[in-house]
């Protein structure tokens, strides 16, 4: 039995990717990175610089919104920066870490947020990659997350390359991947899934046995519940209390 959910595990893992002092950015539709940044700031990375689409720099929101472009993210902000200025900063190579979601990620670490099926005549037209195609090639590091781990998400080759670049990690409810020599390899699987499940649910070849992800510590879980008491981190899993 575990006393944490996959959403807790993912928020903690995303937070662990942030180094103290990092300039870190999340875009729209990013509840897990929003929670992870606030968690990291309250634990091991008090000097991070928190940037998001609202342009509110280093906010201290007392209520976490489900929309990550919400005016609630203005509470306690130190200054206002425009989104254009944030992109410019990234283009100059001065952004340390960006978080992006993906409908598909492939073995080469390329992401698709554009379309399922042919891009010209899509089976499903997806919302689009937002800032990813501009930011991934120029950010120092990119971490991609997805709140599901299956063969439709982790594929051999994406239907369309919306963005590629300095992707360094992929974090799912089952595992952490790292990109080594241009290819994703499994770094660790989470304590509550088996090697067999991870292999079966991944659309490209993996080589078990795998290392096991360190479970969230009591301190991490306590801090997580303090920064996100309403459970916004579970929104991407289709619930508020998951």
């Amino acid at each position, binding site marked *: 039995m575990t006393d944490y959910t996959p959403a807790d595990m993912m928020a903690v893992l995303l937070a662990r990717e942030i180094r103290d002092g990092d300039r870190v950015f999340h875009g*729209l*539709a990013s*509840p897990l990175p929003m929670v992870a940044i606030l968690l990291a700031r309250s634990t091991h990375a008090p000097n991070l610089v928190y940037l998001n*689409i*609202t*342009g*509110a720099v280093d906010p201290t929101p007392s209520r976490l919104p*489900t*929309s*990550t*472009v*919400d*005016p609630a993210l*203005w509470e306690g902000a130190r200054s*206002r920066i*425009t*989104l*254009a200025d944030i*992109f410019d900063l*990234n*283009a*100059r190579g001065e952004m340390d870490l960006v978080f992006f979601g993906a409908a598909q990620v492939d073995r080469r670490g*390329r992401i698709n947020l*554009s379309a399922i099926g042919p*891009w010209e*005549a*899509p*089976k*499903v*037209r*997806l*919302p*689009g*990659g*937002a*800032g*990813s*195609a*501009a*930011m*991934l*090639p*120029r950010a120092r590091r990119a971490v991609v997350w997805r709140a599901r781990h299956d063969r439709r998400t982790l594929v051999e080759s994406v239907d*369309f*390359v*919306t*963005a*590629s*670049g300095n992707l360094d990690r992929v974090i799912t409810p089952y595992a952490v991947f790292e990109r080594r020599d241009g290819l994703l390899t499994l770094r660790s699987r989470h304590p509550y899934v088996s090697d067999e499940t991870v292999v079966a649910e991944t659309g490209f070849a993996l080589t078990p046995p795998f290392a096991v992800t360190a479970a969230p510590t009591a301190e991490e879980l306590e801090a997580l519940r303090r920064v996100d008491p309403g459970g916004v981190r579970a*929104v*991407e899993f289709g619930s508020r209390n998951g």
Partner: protein
Amino acid sequence: MGSKVTSMERAVGAVADGMIVALGGNVLHRSPSAAVREIVRQGRRDLKVIKTAGGYDVDLLAQAGAICAVWAGYVGYENEFGLATHYRRAVERGEVEAREHTCYSVITALRAASYGVPYLPMNGLWGSDLLERRPEDFRVVDDPFGQGPVVAVRAIRPDVAIVHVQKADTEGNCAITGTLFEDVLMVSAARLSIVTAEEVVLAGSLDPESVSIPAVLVSHVVHAPGGARPASCHGYYGIDAEAVRALAAAQTAVGR
């Protein structure tokens, strides 16, 4: 400067079929929703929309069959409300062309229009399929000064920009609270701009240091309290979740 205050009907009457329309705000925040509803009511067709990240506004225009193309980095509702149903189906049926951008290239295209140049270089898009699949808007060119290849982004000059702000004075000076989004850039890039405002105050009563958009860039001012709903308006109201869900569940217009 004289008063630019007019009715929503007259201001939106400046939008003609086939025009390029820039919409302010982002996803479900400070969108010019009331003006978009008036565009639909006036029966406009074949509009082309430009916006970094659209939501209710673009979906409503798609539902009404008012648009034929969208330049955007994102069109959707974020996690809680899912995909923009009407926009998505219109693209899948081939009725609306998704002229996919990344948000930064939308900004670059608007900057080019604002600077009065045909294109601007941008550092990004490397390794994206958009570079080769969207030659109408993106080309890799040689830097004439010898620093290697750069991505050229074609200018997009909106015929009309429509933004919703918290406060405007009667001459069109706008005080935006909270996030500016791309509103200031859109207004300077567009040939004509319409501001809808929660509050319209007397000219001279705004602190000039609080003015985000100067009146010299504004053509029409409309008093439209609640004009962003069901999107949020910082300092006034939050997202109306029920109204967003209602649009997602509604039928798309047929027979266009």
